[in-house]
């Protein structure tokens, strides 16, 4: 009996290849697009989070506020309100701080051996290594002595090394020219990854005093990076810094503050919410594909109802019991949706792999939820619309079914 049912199902599906093929195609497209799109969204979210974590841990950043000239804002960071003394005060007067690194940053043209590149030159202190999770790969970072004496030494990122000296070259002891002055390369950082504007490997570090004397030409700093000792103390530390800086800058109303303070959790939260929005967008597109696929399945199943109703009438007339007719049509719907679902999962998986292969910064991540969701929706639609009309037809009297137009 079961063998007959199985054979009849397979035969019926293969005798109507176009019909079966189109139904499977609808399912495959629906499922594959859901899986691939959700995998891309998830991958984007993961890579954003990874990039942010690479910045450092328990990080609080203070940057100058917007300068107001006659009531007109000049934009964030335009004020020259932060000084090294502010940084020292934070370090000395506030508890639960691991390290404080003031930075004075300037984009400069850098040349070496006829190669040149335009990159970020960051003047900072030794604490920067702790605050921003930077490690040294070759040579060493500058020390206190070099900071005090405004030594013309530089530590470069691996991308900058590649641009100036070529990959695999040893940059230690080489000379680079920044702003028409010679600097000696004394170290290179470990690659952190990241890309575009936030590439933390395309960078040149020099002592803060050196940057102030030779590059920015003033005593101001662009930012103070603070690492709190742990996650729990971050809120308190952030409040204390705000109070301290307002007192030092003689500001009584926090709305008038000439600096901005931000912690890493805020950045992560913002970026995660952007990534989530992105995932929702992709999921909606995927959902629409699934809907379209579902309608396709429904159409295929319903347009064949006329022909199939007569077939059911004939089967009943020649004496096949209702239960076997129902079972056969159910089995057909199950085989179609499972075959389509299986192919759809494979195709979605391949599409995700292709995206990972060709977009180096994005590692897609296939989620089990999307597989289960896509599969069950299409299986549900397929089985309901494949089985329900057949069941109705099998309940008709054979004469009515045979006459069905």
């Amino acid at each position, binding site marked *: 009996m079961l063998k007959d049912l199985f054979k009849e199902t397979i035969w019926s599906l293969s005798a109507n290849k176009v019909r079966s093929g189109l139904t499977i195609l609808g399912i495959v497209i629906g499922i594959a697009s859901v899986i691939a799109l959700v995998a891309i969204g998830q991958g984007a979210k993961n890579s954003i989070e990874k990039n942010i974590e690479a910045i450092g841990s328990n990080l609080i950043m203070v940057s100058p506020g917007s300068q107001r000239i006659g009531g007109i804002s000049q934009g964030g960071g335009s004020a020259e309100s932060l000084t090294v003394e502010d940084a020292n005060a934070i370090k000395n007067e506030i508890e639960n701080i691991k390290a404080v690194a003031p930075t004075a940053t300037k984009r400069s043209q850098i040349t070496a051996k006829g190669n040149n590149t335009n990159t970020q030159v960051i003047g900072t202190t030794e604490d920067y290594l702790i605050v921003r999770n930077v490690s040294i790969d070759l040579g060493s970072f500058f020390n206190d002595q070099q900071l005090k004496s405004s030594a013309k030494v530089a530590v470069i990122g691996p991308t900058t090394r590649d641009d100036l000296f070529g990959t695999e070259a040893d940059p230690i002891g080489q000379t680079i020219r920044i702003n028409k002055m010679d600097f000696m390369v004394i170290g290179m950082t470990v690659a952190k990854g990241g890309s575009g504007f936030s590439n933390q490997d395309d960078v040149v570090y020099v002592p803060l005093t050196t940057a102030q004397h030779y590059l920015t030409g003033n005593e101001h700093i662009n930012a103070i990076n603070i690492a709190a000792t742990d996650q729990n103390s971050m809120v308190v530390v952030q409040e204390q810094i705000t109070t301290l800086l307002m007192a030092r800058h003689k500001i009584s109303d926090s709305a008038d503050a000439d600096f901005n303070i931000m912690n890493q959790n805020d950045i992560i939260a913002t970026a995660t919410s952007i990534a989530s929005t992105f995932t929702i967008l992709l999921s909606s597109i995927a959902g629409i594909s699934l809907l379209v696929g579902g309608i396709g399945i429904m159409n295929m199943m319903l347009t064949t109802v006329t022909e199939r109703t007569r077939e059911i*009438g004939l089967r009943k*007339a*020649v004496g096949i019991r209702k239960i076997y007719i129902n079972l056969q049509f159910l089995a057909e719907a199950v085989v179609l949706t499972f075959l389509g679902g299986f192919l759809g999962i494979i195709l979605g998986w391949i599409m995700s792999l292709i995206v990972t292969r060709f977009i180096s910064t994005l590692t897609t991540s296939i989620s089990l939820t999307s597989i289960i969701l896509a599969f069950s929706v299409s299986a549900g639609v397929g089985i309901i619309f494949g089985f329900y009309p057949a069941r109705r037809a099998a309940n008709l009297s054979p*004469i009515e079914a045979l006459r069905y137009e």
Partner: protein
Amino acid sequence: MINCRNLTKTYLTGGVETHALKNISFSIEKGEFVSIIGPSGSGKSTLMHILGALDVPTSGEYFLDNHEVSKLNDDELSDLRKNKIGFVFQSFNLLPRTTVLRNVMLPLLYSGLSESEREKRARECLKYAGMEEGKFKNLSNQLSGGQMQRVAIARALINDPSIILADEPTGNLDTKTSHLVMEALKELNKKGHTIILITHEMDVANYADRIIHIRDGMIEKDEIKK
């Protein structure tokens, strides 16, 4: 073999009762070739559906081989049709895109017979119905009308039924092919099969040995030809 007593069938459409059959009683013996003839609306199709166990009468009794058909449920009716009745329809009703052999084997589904036994039986029935062996593997939609009806006759024979019910079997065929199909049915009757033919054409009805005339849901005339 077939015994009908006081068969009535009433349809209710839109609150109006239509009496399709009014107190029909008759019997048919094994080996007979009977035509049931009547104009459209006479109730002959309703009678055929009841005789074919496709429908049950509103009242009255219908015995087929001593089974009281009017008391059976849906599954029992299915089993009865499978074992006792072979149908030949006006519009052939073959499965499309399906080989001749598979069409003939359809009633043997879920019968527990082996595949080779089924095919052996189907080949015998097809030869019996006068089908050329070269066409056994053709798809049903590649056949002519006459060939399709032969396949349908072979399908009707496959379970060795007590009666063969032919509902306007020549309705979709030209005169020459009609003649061939009717000759094939007559041949089956000579071999001992009971055949009931439903038609509205006198020419076709005349192939039978006995003609039951139906009009307005009642038997008008029951004539036995010699």
